[in-house]
């Protein structure tokens, strides 16, 4: 195992934290981890099975691939088949189907020029190396990937590259947290906030959420020890009747965030109302290019424009991913889970993405497997 991660996976620390949690928990509580990376870590390491009875973790909408609206994927599909276009994307966007069920992976197999990049700055080199092509970057993700897109936009604009464009579908976490708390069916009593989002944005944006909704919000990391520490802080606040922003991930996430990254986001982007796939439109929950960077926009229509309906995730009777993304249902509550819907033949985006809750359950909790595995 990586020496960097080993201390945060150590079994004796995990055992001590679960013992502390059992002591601290006197009533049932429902916490939501916001980020899909956290969901996967919880299920992969089986942390939910180590929690005391009544302490429930429900899974939030923090999967960038899952919430990218079908209309944006349709636009990416359309661009990828335009003559002379090289479409660059993060790898896990490639499998997600658009509204007609087609994915970039299928389109690539049919000859579209789709490339996987790990860093947006790779797109600059591709654009320079292919002056005769129009290079489009499919810029998705939360505040974690927005600074890198902003840097790409800034460098492209400054260097006067004319063959580079951005299809921007960046989303912001705090408005989604507020929407989940305001929803009448909502069950969230405390949040584990995404540590890497706070590493960029700081925890300042979370304060109004605590104050308005009277819920604890704990900035939490991604390894087993980090996650259990986040859960413990959240439970202790709930048991004491507190609702503060608390940082359980200080090693990576300073309270003020990353000033340079925040400045870059503010310089390049402005908030815009944004559709989240399966959830609807949340005010100011997206980012769009502001002048002069908007010259790079790959003419994608933002969902705030009137007249664009919220794209569905397939028929709600067979796919409940909208409810899964809000933490209202578990993936295994879905009649299609593992039967009509698998990562190879997904009905909804959460089954496709490496961060999606349905994929996490499929990988780690398939029905036939979980029956045999049981709780140790």
């Amino acid at each position, binding site marked *: *195992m*990586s*020496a*960097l*991660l080993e201390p945060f*996976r150590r*079994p004796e620390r*995990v*055992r001590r934290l679960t013992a502390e949690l059992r002591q601290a928990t006197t009533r049932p509580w429902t916490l939501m981890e916001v980020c899909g*990376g956290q969901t996967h870590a919880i*299920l*992969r*390491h*089986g*942390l939910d*099975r*180590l929690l005391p009875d009544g302490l429930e973790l429900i899974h939030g909408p923090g999967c*960038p*691939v899952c919430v990218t609206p079908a209309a944006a994927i349709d636009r990416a599909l359309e661009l990828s088949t335009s003559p002379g276009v090289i479409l660059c994307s*993060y*790898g*896990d*966007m*490639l*499998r997600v189907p658009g509204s007609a069920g087609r994915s970039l*992976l299928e389109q690539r197999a049919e000859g579209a020029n789709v*490339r*996987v*990049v*790990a*860093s947006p700055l*790779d797109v600059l080199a591709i654009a320079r190396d292919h002056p005769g092509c129009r290079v489009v970057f499919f810029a*998705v*993700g*939360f505040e*974690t*990937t927005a600074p890198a897109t902003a840097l790409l936009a800034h460098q492209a604009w400054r260097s006067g590259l004319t063959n580079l464009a951005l299809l921007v579908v960046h989303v912001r976490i705090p408005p989604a947290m507020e929407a989940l708390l305001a929803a009448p069916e909502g069950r969230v009593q405390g949040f584990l906030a995404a540590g*890497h989002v706070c590493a960029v944005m700081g925890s300042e944006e979370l304060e109004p959420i605590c104050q308005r909704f009277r819920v604890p919000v704990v900035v939490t990391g991604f390894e*087993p020890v980090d996650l259990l520490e986040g859960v413990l802080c959240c439970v202790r606040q709930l048991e004491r009747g507190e609702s503060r922003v608390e940082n359980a991930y200080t090693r990576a996430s300073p309270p003020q965030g990353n000033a340079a990254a925040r400045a870059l986001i503010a310089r390049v982007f402005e908030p815009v109302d944004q559709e989240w796939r399966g959830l609807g439109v949340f005010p100011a929950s997206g980012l769009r290019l502001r002048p002069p960077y908007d010259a790079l926009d790959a003419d994608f229509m933002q969902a705030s424009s009137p007249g664009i309906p919220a794209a569905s995730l397939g028929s709600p009777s067979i796919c409940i991913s909208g409810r899964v993304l809000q933490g209202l249902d578990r993936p295994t509550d879905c009649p299609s889970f593992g039967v009509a819907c698998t*990562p*190879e033949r997904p009905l909804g985006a959460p089954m496709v993405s*490496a*961060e999606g809750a349905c994929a996490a359950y*499929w*990988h*780690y*909790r*398939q029905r*036939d*497997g*979980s*029956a*045999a*595995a*049981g709780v*140790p």
Partner: protein
Amino acid sequence: MEIMHGVGCPMPSDPAERVQLGHGGGGGLSQRLIEELFVPAFGPADGVLHDAATLAAGPGALAFTTDSYVVRPLVFPGGDIGRLAVIGTVNDLAMVGACPLALSLALILEEGLAMAMLRHIVAAIRTVAAECGVPVVTGDTKVVERGKGDGIFITTSAVGRLGPGPAIGPPAVQLGDAILVSGDLGRHGVAILAARQELGFRTDLQSDLASLLPAVQALLAEGLAVHALRDLTRGGLASALTEIARGVGLELRIQEAAVPIAPAVASACALLGLDPLAMANEGRLVLFLPTAQAEQARAVLQTFQPEAAIIGTVAAAGSAMGGIVLLENAYGVLRRLTLGQGEQLPRIC
């Protein structure tokens, strides 16, 4: 040219020389390629070519296997497509306990491939075939137009002779068997990802590409009751174990902490969101044999790879749904190990 060292080939090594369509056309260029590159590398010793090779098979059963090789880049840290094409097929034979007798070599070249690269690959094939003790007895070359191939595609087939012991394969796996791996996992997959230079990370990792024949021969020479072997190629340990579990309808239980993963592989996978258990290997095997022989088998395997380890057992009959693989983590929690989804795609954040 340095790349030519050891080929012993009389063809001029003009660095600008490239494969042309005519090299596969059956005419003069084809003849020259065969006479000046392939015959010196592979024989026959008398230089007289025929339509088919004849083999003296002798008594006993034969094993026969074939595989096609595509890899980008053609030369990667720790190997190249030529070495891969011989070792991969020899390893397939080794997994049934067979010793290779003869190998066929079919090349599909892309017009424009640097002749120096072709010579490098042919030299690598000659060297590794000699290391594995298998002659290249027949072959074929075709050339496709530029843009219709990826430099070079190779298909090799091989015939091998089976040893006298009981059949080695998944049907021989028994309840209570120990499960071992012959070394640490995922090096090949990570080395190839890094060598493509698309993901912007560098590593000193080399592919684990290696013949598994010596290790298998050593296990058999010790008189160990090897029940099943599987070389861990694409899909890694996850694919190999799930295939075997499904095939035999048994529950395999793996101790996650016992599976050897090099720190550099673990770090690269953590960073890219890839599963080291699903990463490709080209010189590692998984072994099933009676638990009483597990320590002895590990000691034999460790003479080849110090990281060889006992990773689990065949724990129970499968559920109603058939065989499954369960991974037990350091916290005592079980989860199911599943097949990867084909191509592993790095995640967003």
